[in-house]
């Protein structure tokens, strides 16, 4: 087996492999920057919470329209948005903080979802329908991922500066402009959009994993926001490619393979990154020697 067969061959010979690569790369491109902002805002776990929150919406979409990708996506998006907004509102209007209110609302939403799904009788059916696999991307799913990525990247570019300011110091942004609240809401909508798109096409694990792991790994290499996003996207793309190759050559499930590669990159970064354990703890900083 030569190098071409090892590294490129699978994607040339098999349509489903190139589709899987395109899908995962596009999601990495759009979700990794969102993950960076989530991390900076200390909301790294909300991705997971949201994953559960969209269930009832997608379930309602399925009950109304059947196995159609658009109604389920819209339903999931609406449910995720409602949970995010309610959590945000509660944290702003009451003494409760956003992590607690988000936990409360996503649990309510999840329970509602499970109930809706089992009212229909066949729970497995719906879980399969709701959560895709990266190996079975059809044209609809690819178009949807593309649309999600486009909207997400354009919107991020538009709110980039105020969003960054809000990450650093929300009170400052609120004192100098009225943009804080809308920017926060637009950002939450982008999080939900990326997750819902990802669930439909790739499954929960991949959608949340490609959002958070590259961002977390990038943190050990660089400081600046732009640099963080670039490194995160690169890690996301590399994980998708290597994970699919692993899945192909070693015959392991694709979703977990991609995420485990991203996880390995995270652990490696944790150890040997510029700002990782070894450099900061074991190698003495130069200015102290001088």
């Amino acid at each position, binding site marked *: 087996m030569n190098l071409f067969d090892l590294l490129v061959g699978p994607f040339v010979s098999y349509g489903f492999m190139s589709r899987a690569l395109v899908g995962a790369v596009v999601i990495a491109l759009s979700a990794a920057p969102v993950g960076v902002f989530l991390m900076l805002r200390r909301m790294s776990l909300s991705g997971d919470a949201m994953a559960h929150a969209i269930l009832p919406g997608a379930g309602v979409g399925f009950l109304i329209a059947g196995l159609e990708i658009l109604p389920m996506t819209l339903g999931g998006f609406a449910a995720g948005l409602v949970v995010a907004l309610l959590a945000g509102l509660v944290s702003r209007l009451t003494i409760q903080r956003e992590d607690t209110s988000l936990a409360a609302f996503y649990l309510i939403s999840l329970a509602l979802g499970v109930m809706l799904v089992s009212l229909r009788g066949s729970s497995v059916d719906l879980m399969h329908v709701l959560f895709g696999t990266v190996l079975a991307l059809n044209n609809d799913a690819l178009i949807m991922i593309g649309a999600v990525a486009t909207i997400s990247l354009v919107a991020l570019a538009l709110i980039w500066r105020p969003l960054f300011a809000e990450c650093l110091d929300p009170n400052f942004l609120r004192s100098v402009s009225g943009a804080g609240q809308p920017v926060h809401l637009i950002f939450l909508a982008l999080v939900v959009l990326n997750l819902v798109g990802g669930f439909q096409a790739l499954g929960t694990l991949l959608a949340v994993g490609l959002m958070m792991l590259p961002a977390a790994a990038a943190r050990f290499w660089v400081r600046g926001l732009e640099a963080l996003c670039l490194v995160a996207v690169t890690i996301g793309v590399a994980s998708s490619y290597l994970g699919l190759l692993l899945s192909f050559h070693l*015959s392991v499930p694709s979703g977990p393979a991609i995420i485990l590669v991203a996880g390995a990159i995270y652990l490696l970064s944790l150890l040997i990154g510029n700002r990782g354990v070894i450099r900061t703890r074991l190698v003495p900083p130069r200015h102290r020697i001088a």
Partner: protein
Amino acid sequence: MRALLATISLALLTGTAFAAPIPVVASFSILGDMVQQVGGDRVAVTTIVGPNADTHVYEPKPQDAAVLGEARAFFVNGLGFEGWLERLVDATGFKGAVVTVSDGVKTHEMPEEEDEREEHDHDHAEEHGHHHEGLDPHAWQSLGNGLIYVSNIKEALCQIDVEGCATYTANAEAYSAQIAALDAEVKAAIAAVPQEERKVITTHDAFGYFAEAYGVTFMAPEGISTDSEASAADVAKLIDQVKHDGVKALFIENMSDPRLVQQIAAETGAKLGGALYADALSEPDQGAATYLDMFRQNIALLVPALLGQ
């Protein structure tokens, strides 16, 4: 009400001949139908996992425990099919008979397991008959095994209701004759397909016993249980196989993820044949509401697709 009272008093007077039906429980829809066929009017069958639902990953409800508490017998497939079985029986403290209808069936292991073990441990199943981990539970997919199920059901019903034994035996004989007739029909229909063209792909390899009994090769992109995820290598292998062997028929079973098969169909140009029923019956209006109808429906889909019609 008056009629009911009359019936009850009549029943009391005449012994159990007109007694209320005996409550029994069956674990899933196919088995429910078979028990009803053998039991006839004398038993009232409640099915735990209903039509179109997946028994492998079912979550028992409190209602199931209540139903089971009333029942005289609990009919299960066994062979590890009902993973939740022991927990449910323990939880309800069910004291009646748990009847494993697959007793006496010649079992075989799941295809993947076989591949791995073939060289060093060929007779694993015979040595460790009690170890159900790698066994294929979908024994009812061969009508020959269906006959064994029927006889086990009859035996069990005769034990809990001795007076009805004659009825059960008669029902079982009539039902067995139907099953045997259908078995012959199925064999004849499949014999019309040339041996080398009997290759089918479905989303769920529940057709191991069918394959063995009727000489059809089933290939699947996913493993036996609906909770395992396919790898890229599996899908690629399958696409190669479809192209190489010229497989014409792709079937989506009634509950696994259809998208994977659609993708394979799109990539190979093979045709999708419809929904084969594997481990659940359909709703009454969908044409596969009984064990025999399920078989007829599967054959009606399978044979034309294999012939490329």
